[in-house]
């Protein structure tokens, strides 16, 4: 109990110190600096001062430099806001303040921070979502990005992903990869025996039960399904050859 409170106190003291330090060393003026870089002009906005102070100085600078820019040709600028988080309204305000000087056109706003929501979305869409469970009959899992399943997909169960799907287990149900149209998505499984499989709207249906000569899964060794360029249909290949396909895709 005592230990906890000391750590909490320590953290608070440290936070206070950091605040004091920031206040002491923060630049008194010059919250807005304009620099020429390789890609053109960049307006750096200080990320330590208050937002009001920033807009104040921005207004001043623009009014003062208005003449300097004159009515010359349009100048595209980038705005770098550093570690300051701007709301949409604040972004618009900064852009309109800058563009008050006629020739200035804000090309983009660069920031080092994004909101939790944006981060979550970005992670979802590019990341791998991992599940460790059995997807049973009637269950349906749908993720953005890639799906990595430690477990089986039983007959009647469905897994869907906007990216690729990898099943470290037996795929006996339905798998849909690239549901938003990603033709490069693949479906891999340790044991491939799906009822139905689709990649970006191209379907593969399991062979009829009575047509199956021998008992057992479609593929006993790890394979992945992909859309074959030539036949425009689902094809299967040994998982160990997946890297070749990825390499070919990267070449394109």
């Amino acid at each position, binding site marked *: 109990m005592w230990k906890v409170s000391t750590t909490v106190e320590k953290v608070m003291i440290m936070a206070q110190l950091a605040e004091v330090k920031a206040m002491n060393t923060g630049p008194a003026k010059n919250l807005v600096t304009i620099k020429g870089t390789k890609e053109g002009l960049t307006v750096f906005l200080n990320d330590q001062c208050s937002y009001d102070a920033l807009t104040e100085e921005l207004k001043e600078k623009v009014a003062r430099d208005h003449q300097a820019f004159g009515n010359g040709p349009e100048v595209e600028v980038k705005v770098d806001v550093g570690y300051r988080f701007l709301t949409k309204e604040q972004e618009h305000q900064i852009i309109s303040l800058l563009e008050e000087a006629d020739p200035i056109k804000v090309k983009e706003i660069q920031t080092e921070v994004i909101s939790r929501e944006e981060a979550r979305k970005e992670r979802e869409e590019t990341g791998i979502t991992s599940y460790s469970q059995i997807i049973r009959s009637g269950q349906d899992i749908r993720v953005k990005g890639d799906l990595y399943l430690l477990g089986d997909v039983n007959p009647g*169960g469905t897994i869907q992903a906007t990216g690729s799907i990898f099943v470290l287990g037996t795929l006996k149900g339905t798998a849909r990869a690239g549901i938003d149209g990603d033709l490069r998505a693949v479906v891999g499984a340790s044991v491939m025996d799906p009822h139905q499989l689709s990649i970006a709207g191209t379907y593969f249906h399991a062979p009829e039960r009575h047509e199956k000569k021998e008992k057992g899964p479609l593929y006993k060794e790890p394979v992945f399904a992909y859309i074959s360029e030539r036949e425009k249909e689902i094809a299967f290949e040994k998982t160990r050859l997946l890297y070749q396909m990825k390499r070919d895709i990267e070449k394109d």
Partner: protein
Amino acid sequence: MGEAIVVTSGKGGVGKTTTSANIGTALALQGKNVCLMDTDIGLRNLDVVMGLENRIIYDLVDAAEGRCRVKQALIKDKRFDCLHLLPAAQTKDKSAVNPAQMKAIVDELKPDYDYIIIDCPAGIEQGYKNAVSGADQAIVVTTPDTSAVRDADRIVGLLEQEDIDPPKLVVNRVRSQLASQGDMLDVDDVVSTLAIDLLGMIVDDEEVIKAAHRGEPIVMNPNSRASLGYRNIARRILGESVPLMAVEEKKSFFAKVKSMLGLKA
């Protein structure tokens, strides 16, 4: 404080009621206080299998709606003093009670019994929700058919969302000969698909049909193979470690009997 065990399957006709009746009777044989609860309102069967249909006065719906006390609706078994049945209503339907009422009844019964075996209706609708609401544990019954296993899988998925222990599996009506010929799923296939603990398997046995016809649970007949299966399940529920290897032995024994019959014929 007793344990409430729901016997469910998803699919109809796989032997939920037979399993409920026999597990309940087998537990009573071991001297446990058992209450069988039929939740298949509108299509009650458990009373018939137990041979108690002529003694019903009040039923589950009467108890739920307060027309009688829960104790008044209970019927004492003709064979065991420690075995009781709470019958379902035959005239109403599943919507006559709700999960909260069901849970209240189960909770009221729990202090007086060691085990409450809840016989669940087929399906995954209201009746299922009612039956599961008061349960602490679940037994999933399936036969080695593709469709029954599919439905059992669905039920296992639904049970996993409930606040109860992981369900246990009973594979009913196993025909080892067909399975060994590859014309039917074998017990291993079923267990590997459902990925839950196997509580026991019951071989397909004509004696079960005969016993149901007489209104007497098959466990009362000590010479039947199905009876042995149910007795083993009861012992496992009581915490005894009856080796599951017995399943294999039984199978080979069954095969032996078959081959002997074959020789004789």
